[in-house]
């Protein structure tokens, strides 16, 4: 894990007496919420538990802690790795304990959030289907065929959600399902390795 000089400096501020013990705990938990995309970042300054901290230093500490947590999760750093960095930044043992416990608790979730940053292709999250009976059209009577309409719901990070829709006959759906089952079987074999 590599941290820039300004982040290290911000961490030192976070570990210093400029931030009281009570304020530090609050700050740490707000930082974790923020990396998960929860909580309201703009309300940090108004938080009564953090009122005694100088606002410039508060910003610096907050930013540094967020960068630290994200970077540690990104590189899959473990508890020991995290503690080492915090020790170097002159954190007290209590504060190291507080922050690394919070980090380990939420690490998997933070990694999940980071993993969703880039989806190369639209990611299928759901499927809807409908079965119609096609009777006729203006060129041809007595068509009399069942037709499936399939909606694939996809998500693609920033690019939002999209529905891929197509029709298929009974035979075509059988073909599709056979191929999907093959893919599932392959996955199972991979999972067993």
């Amino acid at each position, binding site marked *: 894990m590599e941290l820039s000089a300004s982040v290290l400096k911000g961490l030192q501020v976070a570990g210093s007496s400029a931030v009281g013990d009570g304020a530090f705990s609050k700050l740490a938990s707000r930082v974790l919420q923020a990396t998960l995309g929860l909580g309201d970042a703009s309300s940090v300054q108004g938080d009564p538990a953090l009122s005694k901290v100088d606002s410039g230093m508060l910003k610096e500490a907050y930013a540094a802690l967020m960068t630290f947590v994200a970077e540690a999760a990104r590189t899959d750093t473990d508890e020991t790795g995290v503690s080492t960095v915090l020790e170097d930044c002159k954190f007290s043992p209590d504060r190291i304990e507080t922050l690394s416990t919070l980090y380990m608790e939420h690490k998997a979730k933070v990694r999940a959030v980071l993993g969703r940053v880039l989806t190369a292709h639209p990611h299928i999250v759901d499927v809807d289907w409908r079965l119609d009976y096609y009777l006729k059209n203006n060129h041809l009577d007595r068509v009399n065929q069942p037709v499936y309409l399939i909606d694939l719901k996809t998500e693609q990070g920033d690019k939002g959600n999209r529905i891929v829709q197509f029709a298929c006959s009974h035979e075509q759906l059988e073909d599709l399902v056979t191929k999907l089952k093959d*893919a599932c079987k392959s996955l199972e074999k991979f999972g067993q390795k």
Partner: protein
Amino acid sequence: PTVGVVICFTMLLVLSEEHKEHLRFLTSVELDVVKEFCRISLEFIRKGSNPRVYQTAAQKLGVDAGTVCHGVEGLMYLLTECSKLMVNELDFQDSIMVLGFSEDLKKELLAIYLENCNEIRTILSHMSMDLPHYQDLEWRLDVELASRALQRQVNPLVLLRFQIKDGESTSSELLQTDPVNLRHLTSTLEDALAEIKSQHCRRIMRNIK
């Protein structure tokens, strides 16, 4: 107990006076000529009409090109309408009875109709509106190891390429999913497939013919 409904079609093609007039011309020529007209009609149904053919035929027969044109077009309409409605043998014979054709001519027309009706229906279906439909699926299993935002992953990813045909053009949709969603997708579509064998669907499909 539910009441079954059987919907049966008996289609008689009703020909307009004008149409009957055009076809009446066929009674005044040899059977071989009618066969030729039928051949021309089928060619035109397959490939579109060619006015020069009318001229040549008109000269050979010593009649007006307009008459030839009407005769051929009359035959084309008869064949396509009967194919469209899937008129059965009996109904076809009843429909042309009003034209006063000879027995031989009636037999000939019926034979030509029965021989070509499926092909004509295929041609008509190409003209019909169609929804973009599934053509093929290719899949691939990848394991995502890292990205700029996240290192050290072991993330199984399934890539799916759907080939979708819309009219003449085929397009490719490249999508991805994870193992959980793949299983969900597969089982949902399996349920969809099973639905067609349900009593309700079978009853509807059996009764609308």
